[in-house]
């Protein structure tokens, strides 16, 4: 009886809070832009060594991609926006003869020139062997972020970080990264002693740390793939099973999303997932507008208003 009463109190408190939120929000005018803070996220995935554009051979992709053209697009945006984060979701390597001949050196050099803030590792980044990836990182001025590959006793030991907190203007962003199961996907001899750990648990652990640090936005770079027909872990599953992740920048499945997908996480909050095809033919852009100056240090239910950017 007492127990039921407590439950009732608890539930009604939660219910009224839940009802109160939209009322408070809708009562406030959305044109109230004081304390507005902005962040522009630019992202790529599965670029696969496409340093030059696809050749002009009459095929669908002719003329698309290439680091020189990507740089122009990025420079233009950099000239217009102050707080920019440039991210990549893995599979930097493999796909053009550049990789066969130079093993990823020009790919990493180009990303450093483009000013990437962070990237995660895809399965094809193991293609030259784990020692090769570790070796090519000498050309990187950006971190490789991953929390679910245990690289102990491999050439990659100590060469990745589980997360990074980046301050852009007055926005604090926490970045973490997750990689796909390697067994059955990457030849054993290429990934060596790397141990794949369950990504959802690891990602939630790291995201909780980032939330406690007071990050305004928690971004997970993922090479899990957007979704599958079976129960294989994916961005969709990660989004639904997460607590603190706000945005998943995905890859692996080479899908070009017409718009970011929105899921509800364990807290009932909105999580966005985006992926922009492959080969660097597209650059994704998400402009975040935060209102209010208070940093959130705890997980809570919140919504995200998503709309197509109009110029």
């Amino acid at each position: 009886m007492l127990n039921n009463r407590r439950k009732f109190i608890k539930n009604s408190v939660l219910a009224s809070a839940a009802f109160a939120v939209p009322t408070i929000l809708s009562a406030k005018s959305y044109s109230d832009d004081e304390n507005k803070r902005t962040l522009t996220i630019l992202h790529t995935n599965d670029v696969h060594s496409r340093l030059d554009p696809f050749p002009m051979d009459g095929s669908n992709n002719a003329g698309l991609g290439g680091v020189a053209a990507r740089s122009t697009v990025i420079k233009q945006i950099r000239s217009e926006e102050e707080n920019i984060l440039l991210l990549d979701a893995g599979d930097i390597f493999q796909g053009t003869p550049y990789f066969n001949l130079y093993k990823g050196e020009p790919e990493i050099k180009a990303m450093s020139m483009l000013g990437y803030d962070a990237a995660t590792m895809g399965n094809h980044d193991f293609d030259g062997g784990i020692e090769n990836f570790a070796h090519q990182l000498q050309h990187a001025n950006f971190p490789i972020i991953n929390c679910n590959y245990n690289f102990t006793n491999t050439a990659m030991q100590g060469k990745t970080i589980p997360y990074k907190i980046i301050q852009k203007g007055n926005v604090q962003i926490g970045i973490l990264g997750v990689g796909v199961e390697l067994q059955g996907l990457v030849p054993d001899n290429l990934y060596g002693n790397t141990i794949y750990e369950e990504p959802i648990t690891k990602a939630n652990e790291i995201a909780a740390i980032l939330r406690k640090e007071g990050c305004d936005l928690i971004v997970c770079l993922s090479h899990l793939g957007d979704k599958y027909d079976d129960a294989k872990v994916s961005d969709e599953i990660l989004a639904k099973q997460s607590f603190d992740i706000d945005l998943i920048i995905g890859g692996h499945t080479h899908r070009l999303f017409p718009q970011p997908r929105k899921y509800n996480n364990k807290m009932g909050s909105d999580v966005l997932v985006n992926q922009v095809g492959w080969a660097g033919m597209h650059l994704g852009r998400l402009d975040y507008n935060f209102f209010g100056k208070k940093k959130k240090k705890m997980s809570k239910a919140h919504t995200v208003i998503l709309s197509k950017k109009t110029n």
Partner: protein
Amino acid sequence: MFSSKIKKYSSFLFATLFVYACTTKPPQVNYSDYKVDKQTNIDSSYIRMLMPYKDSLDKSMNEVIGFSVHGLFKKQPESPLGNFMTDAIKTMAEKKFGKKIDAAFVNFGGIRSYIPKGDITVGKIFELMPFDNLVVLQELKGDKLKSFLGRVCEKGGWPVSTGLTYAIKDKLPVDILIDGKPIDETATYIIANSDYIANGGDNCDMLKSIPKQNINYLMRDALLEYTRMLTSNAKPIDAKIENRVVYAK
């Protein structure tokens, strides 16, 4: 006891209200997408950075080694591109290993590009098969071959060379014919695959424990040499759909 719970809930309530009070409104996200194309003025510093790599790359990659009558693209369950690749591997592997092969496969995910209509360069073949995968042969009993084909059908059908045909029904292989005859579960067949697949890649675990014949022959070399061979015989690449893999009615 009860009051401590009340206290706990009220602090929860206050915390909740506190957070909501601090939130003026939810973040707003505007999305957009940029097509990276030739319309964009290119940044010449990247051309300079790539120059030393590209110069020596182009020397080896721009050599024309063949001609394709059509543009060939990957498609399931069967595509002219898959037929070209598997026939190349079967033909060249038979020469290199010096024995008859019943069928050669390429995993669908391993086809990384396409063959354009017209001149085929070395670079095109590198893009088609960028991996340093080796051609390996395995002697498969009919039941093992069937179980491999089961996985192949589950994945939507993979290209196969001349010598074997199959149909897919509810993601299962049916009507498997080898050299025109129904598969014999007790017979032994010589099958060519990449070392990646033969080692259990793409979830082909059933092949992993079966001995592999390996002469360090790259799949890409098979494609390059087959293309050169066609050219030296004055033949273009002219692969077609031959109903090697179909969906069963």
